[in-house]
């Protein structure tokens, strides 16, 4: 009996040891920590987590009878989360009961009214307007639907009537966004002229925000000399398509593209994420040390190589935005100045890693990421560190510069390697007119623009404070040599004066 107990104890001990081992194995899976950012030198700097996984939801967790298949769209509206279950031709509407629990409130797979088929076919995106009307990108049926709250069809948008579009091209609406006036912006597969814009009355009114075509000098020269026959075989310079878009709280559209090449990103020919205003111009602030295209390291790692390929973007109410990279399954957060705040994630099956990250959205400060391949929804919430960072940014935006500086100090206590904290403290000191201190903070993190702002003021103050001494110094600089010269001249005159030469 005693012996049996000993064996049992041994078994328990070895089991717990095994569990411990697998824990460490999991931690070691990441080359770096889970969350990181790039510093001025483009070196990876580990960071405490900004977002951490709270829960992951599979079809079973959501108590769906039919398992999700190939979901391609995620959309959050107020307290609701919509998953476009593309493979099952339906959209799942979830309601958030509390921070950790979702329940299915309805399943949208058909609607009433309308002229043609009234079921959905491979829906890829959904958007809800302020009035509560539901817009669905019904890709398989080549249309965008406008339904009312009770799924009664109001309108259908078809292929844009534009002479530049090929007759044979089938309209494939992929992602949509709706503004407050119920204008619809659509990213369509195979249309590279920008976003298709529809007015509230359903008429197509043009393309906005086309990405420029990219080519290199060599290709360009080659095309100049190539014959007609050769030209027909070469690929033409075509503008790249967008992959997703997001309408922020101010009505600006953030659009991302995953059709990017490493050299185009590095030369700045292509921008992976853009903020479009009403007329389609890019107004994104880019004050960071490097452009906003996700990972700077593009080498091979874990079977994935090349640049980050953005598949979705979401914008918080403090103008920070998070881009989702489907290549390495990472999320990249940028602040309102375009500086990288954090990057986290990775490829894999553990919580917080993705196989094919396709959609990202947020409710409040909670982040939701949808994985197309595993059909899993993962929820993230801000950690203590993340909350501090967000608070510091918000306080600065609201004009509480003192408070913002203090919050950044708190951030620095948790992560002394966080460049944004130094720059944040510097900016708050700058607003408090403490120029000398601000300069030190900017210099540490090589922020030359802000440093110059502070230094300009400091220099002005210094000159004003020392104006008397500067004048005295300048006068002395001119007068003393003049006086010395005068002295020698007079002495010379006296020595050579006629009256002293006696024996002439």
């Amino acid at each position, binding site marked *: 009996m005693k012996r049996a107990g000993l064996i049992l104890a041994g078994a328990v001990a070895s089991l717990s040891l095994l569990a411990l081992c697998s824990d460490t194995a999991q931690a070691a899976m990441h080359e770096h920590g889970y969350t990181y950012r790039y510093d*001025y030198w483009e070196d990876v700097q580990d960071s405490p987590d900004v977002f951490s996984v709270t829960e992951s939801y599979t079809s079973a967790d959501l108590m769906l009878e039919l398992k999700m298949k190939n979901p391609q769209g995620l959309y959050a509206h107020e307290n609701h989360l919509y998953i476009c279950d593309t493979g099952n031709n339906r959209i799942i509407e979830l309601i958030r009961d509390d921070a950790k629990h979702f329940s299915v409130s309805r399943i949208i797979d058909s609607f009433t009214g309308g002229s043609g088929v009234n079921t959905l076919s491979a829906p890829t995106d959904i958007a809800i307007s302020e009035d509560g009307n539901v817009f669905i990108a019904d890709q398989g049926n080549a249309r965008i639907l406008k339904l009312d709250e009770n799924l009664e069809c109001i309108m259908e948008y078809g292929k844009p009537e534009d002479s530049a579009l090929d007759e044979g091209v089938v309209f494939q609406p992929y992602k949509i966004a709706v503004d407050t006036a119920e204008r619809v912006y659509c990213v369509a597969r195979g249309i590279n002229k920008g976003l298709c814009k529809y007015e509230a009355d359903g008429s197509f009114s043009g393309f906005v925000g086309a990405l420029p075509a990219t080519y290199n000098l060599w290709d360009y020269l080659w095309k100049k000399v190539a014959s007609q026959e050769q030209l027909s075989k070469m690929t033409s310079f075509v503008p790249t398509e967008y992959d997703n878009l997001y309408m922020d709280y101010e009505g600006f559209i953030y659009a991302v593209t995953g059709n990017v090449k490493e050299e185009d990103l590095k030369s700045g020919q292509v921008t992976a994420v853009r903020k479009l205003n009403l007329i389609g111009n890019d107004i994104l602030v880019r004050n960071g040390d490097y452009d906003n295209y996700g990972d700077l390291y593009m080498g091979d790692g874990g079977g994935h190589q090349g640049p980050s390929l953005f598949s979705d973007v979401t914008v918080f109410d403090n103008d920070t935005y998070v881009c989702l990279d489907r290549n390495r399954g990472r999320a990249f957060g940028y602040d309102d100045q375009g500086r990288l705040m954090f990057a986290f994630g990775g490829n894999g099956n553990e919580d917080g890693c993705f196989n094919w990250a396709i959609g990202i959205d947020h409710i409040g400060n909670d982040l939701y990421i949808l994985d197309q391949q595993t059909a899993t929804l993962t929820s993230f919430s801000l950690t203590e560190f993340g909350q501090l960072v967000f608070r510091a940014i918000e306080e600065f935006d609201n004009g509480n510069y003192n408070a913002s500086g203090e919050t950044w100090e708190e951030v620095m206590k948790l992560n002394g390697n966080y460049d944004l904290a130094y720059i944040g403290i510097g900016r708050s000191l700058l607003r408090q007119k403490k120029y000398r201190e601000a300069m030190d903070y900017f210099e540490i993190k*090589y922020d030359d*623009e802000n*440093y*110059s702002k502070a230094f*300009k003021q400091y*220099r002005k103050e210094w000159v004003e404070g020392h104006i008397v001494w500067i004048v005295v110094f300048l006068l002395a600089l001119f007068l003393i040599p003049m006086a010395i010269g005068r002295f020698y001249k007079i002495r010379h005159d006296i020595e050579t004066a006629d009256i002293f030469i006696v024996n002439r």
Partner: protein
Amino acid sequence: MTETITARFINKEAWSKYIDSLKFAFYCLTHPLDGFWDLTHEKRGTIAAANTILIATLIVRIMKLRYTSFIFITVYWEELNIFLYLASILFPLALWVIGNWALTTLFDGKGRLKQVYMASCYALLPYPVIQLPIMLLSNVVTVDEREFYSVISALSLVYCGLLIIAAMGQIHEFSGGKNILFTIASLFAMLVMVFILMLFFSMVTEGVSYIVSLVREMLFRM
């Protein structure tokens, strides 16, 4: 031996000659043609002064890293090799001096190796003279005034280049056209020397690894 060295240190004549030749470098700055002619033909220059200018150039080059405002130069200290950094001046200078002398001596160049070295070092003077003040100046400018710094900085290099060309013309007693021709030819000579050096080093590595593998093989068989 030690007596002669100490004797030289307290030799007032030698000191004043050295100081004069150093001052003469500033005359060359403003009167390159006249100055570089006198440098060798009137024996106004000394190797000691040339060495001093070269060392000053190297010191300013290192000081620039630390004391120039970060607006203009940011240094990744972890990967900085100070000797390699100094070699960025010393190596081209050595190649230039040897290459130029080797070529011009075949084509009626009057300058000797020592004189080519001396004149080249004298021609480097604008670098410390201009870079040192603008290094200090860089700390009182903002990004908007960045251009001042870059233009003056570039000017110092152009000035050095022009002085070197003028100096070579004078010490070799070349005409203008011939001087330009030999300046370009010297640059090619530098390229050829780099090529030969690379060839030499790769040959040596190959040779060494051959012998190493041979010895390993023998040890393995024995």
